[in-house]
């Protein structure tokens, strides 16, 4: 009780509680930032739901696998990109 009195009795930033500080900080954020963040979160949520509904095959983890795409079977030892196509067509030996 005494502590509470001390906390509320001293005005100013050093004595304000964490919750008060958080409320003050949120109140200080411009409205356009709040709208922007809420819209962005809604968009991300929408993307996640769409991803899950489509079977959950796409996501950041896909890019860490060796072959990102569900590649069709290729009857070739190499699957060169256009950048390395010259090497693939070069005669061996």
């Amino acid at each position, binding site marked *: 009780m005494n502590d509470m009195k001390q906390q509320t009795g001293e005005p100013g930033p050093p004595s304000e509680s964490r919750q008060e500080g958080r409320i003050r900080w949120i109140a*200080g*954020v*411009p409205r*356009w930032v709040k709208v922007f963040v809420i819209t962005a979160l809604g968009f991300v949520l929408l993307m996640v739901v769409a991803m899950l509904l489509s079977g959950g095959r796409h996501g950041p983890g896909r890019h860490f696998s060796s072959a*990102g795409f569900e*590649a*069709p079977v290729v009857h070739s030892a190499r*699957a*060169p990109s256009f950048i390395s196509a010259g090497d693939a067509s070069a005669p061996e030996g």
Partner: protein
Amino acid sequence: MALSPALRRAMLAAHIVCSVGWLGAAAAYLALAVAAEASTQPQVVRAAWIGMELSGWFVIVPLACLAFLTALVLSLGTPWGLFKHYWVVIALVLTTLSLAVLLLHMPSVSTAAGLAQTADDAAVRRLGGDVLHPAVGLLVLTVITVLNVHKPRGLTPYGQHKQTKEAKDSTNKGAPLQLSNRVNPQPGRRAPA
């Protein structure tokens, strides 16, 4: 750390060229991706994927890296700062995310482009396109461009702290308070020279 006016203008021109170039290249990539997705002709799908790989590695990635670097230099070399204004912070976060997704995604594009060249016609038709990434990327880049042009008001807590500190410093030194306005260039909504 402040840039000279001439250097700042040169850096700003470079940043605009790279950023708008990134946007245009992403739009061209999207056109190829839609062609690959919509077409039933294997030749079209093959050509589209080759074009997507080339434009991705040789146009989009360099422009994105340069846009990111010039943005960093401009932020740190002018009174705008990197973390003082909400719009700069949001633009920085979106640019960093876009660049990270781009760099993570491009190896997959190379893999698909390689397959498009070597797989048989039926497999190439199943390859489809890559519409989602450039479409979302274009949206994000458009948002960043709008933020950069509009420069909406709003100082972060860090920016407020810096502004208060600079105002106190200038008051202690006997300098006019107008100096603090240079730290927060909001009224003009333009980067100060």
